[in-house]
């Protein structure tokens, strides 16, 4: 799976389990190995991992791109009636 899709999956997983389980455990449930770029953050909950990854110059644009794709969904998922 390409990095962009993995990042997208992490955002979506955060909606369900963003604070408690480490990123590596969540991804392993989908048989996905933590990509090299995200390895330093694999023991953190996904939402915190994403926030830290956003601080990395080389990753910021990718996260921005995924964010702009997901922002429309943010208001239609869960309890946004």
């Amino acid at each position: 799976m390409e990095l962009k899709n993995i990042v997208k999956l992490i955002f979506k997983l955060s909606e369900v389990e963003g604070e408690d389980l480490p990123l590596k455990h969540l991804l392993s449930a989908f048989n996905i190995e933590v990509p090299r770029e995200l390895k330093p953050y694999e023991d953190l909950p996904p939402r915190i991992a994403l926030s830290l990854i956003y601080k990395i110059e080389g990753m910021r644009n990718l996260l921005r791109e995924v964010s702009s794709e997901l922002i429309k969904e943010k208001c239609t998922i869960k309890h946004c009636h």
Partner: protein
Amino acid sequence: MKAYPRMIRRGDSFNPLEVAKWTEEIVCRDGSRKYTAFYATGVYGGIATGYVVGCCFRCFFCWTDFSRDFPEFYGRYYTAEEACKNIVDVAKKWKVNKARISGGEPTLCKKHLIDLLRLIEERDEIKLFILETNGLLFGVDEGYVKDVVKFEKVYVRVSLKAGEPEAFEARTGASKEFFELPFKAIKSLLDLNARFHVAAMTDPRIMPSEERRKLIERLREIDDFLAVNLEEEVCDPYEGTLVRMQFYGLDPLKFFERRRGYWS
């Protein structure tokens, strides 16, 4: 303000900066701060927690114990050194490398917090320190944000309570004129390239969908990423929550959709 605000009733409001100062007179003393306990919990994949006393908001849905409402009766004073030692001892005992102070507003007692962060920074046992704040005091003082985010282990979680000024006042008791301060804190954190995310009490039983939409839009105006990575909080029936709701004028049984017994 005539009396120290404790639990709020519908329609109550106060100046939260005054309450912050008043609370500090109770819970801070010569660089020490009141704590009720030190323990580890399962959140964040396991985290050592110092449970502090005192807050400047009075949210009716708040989950903390009654030390928020009656800080005079709870906890004892710990220096930053004592608090750091207790947090590190808990972390070692439970084999976790994250820490936080929770239960109250950690940005009260500035000197204590800065001293504690300095000490945590020196301890190899702690890799990440999560600072959970309502953003009020950071919003009023950007210098405070700078002082905190210079510590490399600090990660901030700003918890918003509302997406509109009137709802902010109704839920927290803090006057609506202070609604913007937590958003100002978020902007400062972003400008300072701090490590943080935003949470909000968007439980649909508390926040209507239109207000939630506005809140997300406000975050989008700052940064799309913050909006997408928003942590959406849910209200749970903790003991303190049930009592505060009842006092506020909400029926907790109806709120949590529990069936009444024959005695009620």
